[in-house]
């Protein structure tokens, strides 16, 4: 009995945490599938009817939905590429520790630990139209005419830049950790063999960083697809629906137009996209662990 108790003691340790996740994450996860086949309305809670795949059929026929998918794609592709390249460039820049480099490193990481919503408001203040906006005032020094950064034509580009700015710290930190794991003697040996800086970068840094790159890319992609805060703070999906990416459209449908069932169907679409990416992530992750 004593032995059996000891053998299963782990249950006592892991059960509370797992149970908690089951209630607050796993249950809503599966519940969204059920909700997506109902016509639940926010105004008539608890009175839903099963309507089969009607919500999904409606989505397929909905131009705004396809528009939001298109915007999400554009947003994700540019944010992922921008954040990844910029983050890696910064990691390389700060790889070698020099006097005062901590100041740069710390400032890069700062945007990541403070509330995105506060940063969204900060940028809104900086991007104000007219020459009283800080960005416009600075550009005026270089002879660039003031413009409206959040107008119909500019909003998406601006959002991509701000999101990259906010996301870079995360990439930076992971890549820094990756770079520091590369043994220094590899570089030394290559130097002795006469390899230049570019060759060392191409033949040591890049191959050694491969798995870090992959993990990082997938993590950025998943978080970008579900991205909400900054967009909500800066543009709210507008002007018109120029920046209404999938999460924004889902939020509006569910909570401004009360169509919870339809919102759930969109959530399921997003779930599938992130699940597929997560599975790829796990395969890579496992591969790295075993190697």
């Amino acid at each position, binding site marked *: 009995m004593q032995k059996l108790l000891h053998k299963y003691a782990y249950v006592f*340790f892991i059960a509370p945490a*797992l149970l908690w996740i089951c209630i607050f994450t796993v249950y809503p996860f599966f519940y969204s599938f059920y909700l997506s086949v109902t016509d639940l309305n926010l105004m008539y809670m608890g009175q839903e009817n099963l309507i089969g795949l009607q919500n999904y059929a409606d989505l397929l026929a909905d131009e705004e939905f396809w528009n939001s998918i298109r915007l999400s794609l554009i947003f994700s592709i540019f944010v992922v590429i921008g954040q990844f390249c910029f983050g890696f460039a910064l990691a390389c820049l700060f790889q070698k520790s020099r006097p005062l480099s901590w100041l740069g490193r710390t400032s890069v990481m700062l945007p990541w630990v403070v509330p995105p*919503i*506060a940063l969204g408001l900060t940028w809104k203040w900086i991007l104000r139209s007219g020459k009283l906006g800080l960005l416009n005032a600075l550009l005026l020094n270089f002879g660039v005419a003031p413009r409206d950064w959040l107008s119909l034509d500019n909003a998406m580009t601006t959002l991509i830049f701000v999101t990259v700015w906010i996301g870079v710290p995360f990439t930076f*930190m992971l890549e820094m950790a990756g770079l520091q794991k590369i043994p220094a003697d590899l570089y030394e040996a290559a130097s002795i063999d006469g390899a230049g800086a570019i060759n060392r970068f191409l033949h040591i840094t890049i191959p050694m960083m491969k798995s870090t790159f992959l993990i990082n890319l997938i993590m950025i992609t998943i978080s970008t697809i579900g991205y909400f805060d900054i967009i909500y703070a800066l543009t709210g999906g507008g002007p018109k629906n120029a920046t209404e990416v999938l999460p924004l459209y889902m939020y509006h449908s569910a909570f401004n137009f009360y169509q919870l069932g339809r919102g759930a169907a969109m*959530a399921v679409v997003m*779930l599938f996209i992130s699940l597929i990416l997560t599975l790829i992530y796990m395969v890579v992750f496992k591969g790295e662990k075993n190697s």
Partner: protein
Amino acid sequence: MKKSQKIIKTVITYVFYAAVFLLFFAPIYWVTITSFKDPGDMFVYPPQWYIPNPTLDHYKKVLFQTMMPIGFRNSLFIGFTTVLVAGILSALAAYGFSRYRFKANQPLMLFLIITKMLPASVLIVPLYVMMNNFRMLDTFQGLIGVYISINIPFSVWILKSFFDAIPADLDEAAYIDGCSTVGTFLKVLLPLTVPGIVAVSVITFFSCWNEFIIALTLTSRTAIQPMSIGLYTFMTEQGVQWGPITCATAIAIFIPAVLFLIFQRYFIAGMTSGAVKG
């Protein structure tokens, strides 16, 4: 030749350092100095990088005439409660995963990754309906319950890597000395993982303090809404009152920034051990 090349390289590196520092620090600096500016100095061209007539009027207004203090109080309460409960649950689970071999060990750790990778936005619709059914909409319990749940997976991963780093001989020695399992956990292992616990606590606190979309969905009463929602409502309700808004923003940024500066080392160690290693 060699020496001059080296100097040029150093100079270029430092020019880049300065540019990076400005790019990331300037926006935060700008919003902070704006919050101390006299309303008359806020809208001038060219922009002033210093504060001509420092004033605390905006701060007085934000702290005594708006709902923002309630938001800050709620955020602190929600943050500390989540840190406490999620920390305890995660430490127990991490210990279980680190010290016991059982069939479901690896699959369950992978399951934790999956739940961690889900973006919060995909869960808001079912969470809203679920909380409505449980009568937990607009309550601290509902919001904190979800926050604990989204913070457990990563915390378990981080703490497990810290437990893994402690040799199992230590447990055995304690066991032989007459320590029970729980005693070993509390008296021998937990003190050794303090850096991990600090890291997890800081990361969890940040994630609560910064969280927006779940709070936006699950709360509507000012009395329980966290700071992030207060900030957003403040912005939309007051329209163009940039003075008080920049103040509230500066306070919202200041608290995690200071925490980050104090706990930077732990924070980065935790983040990287959870995300890169396994």
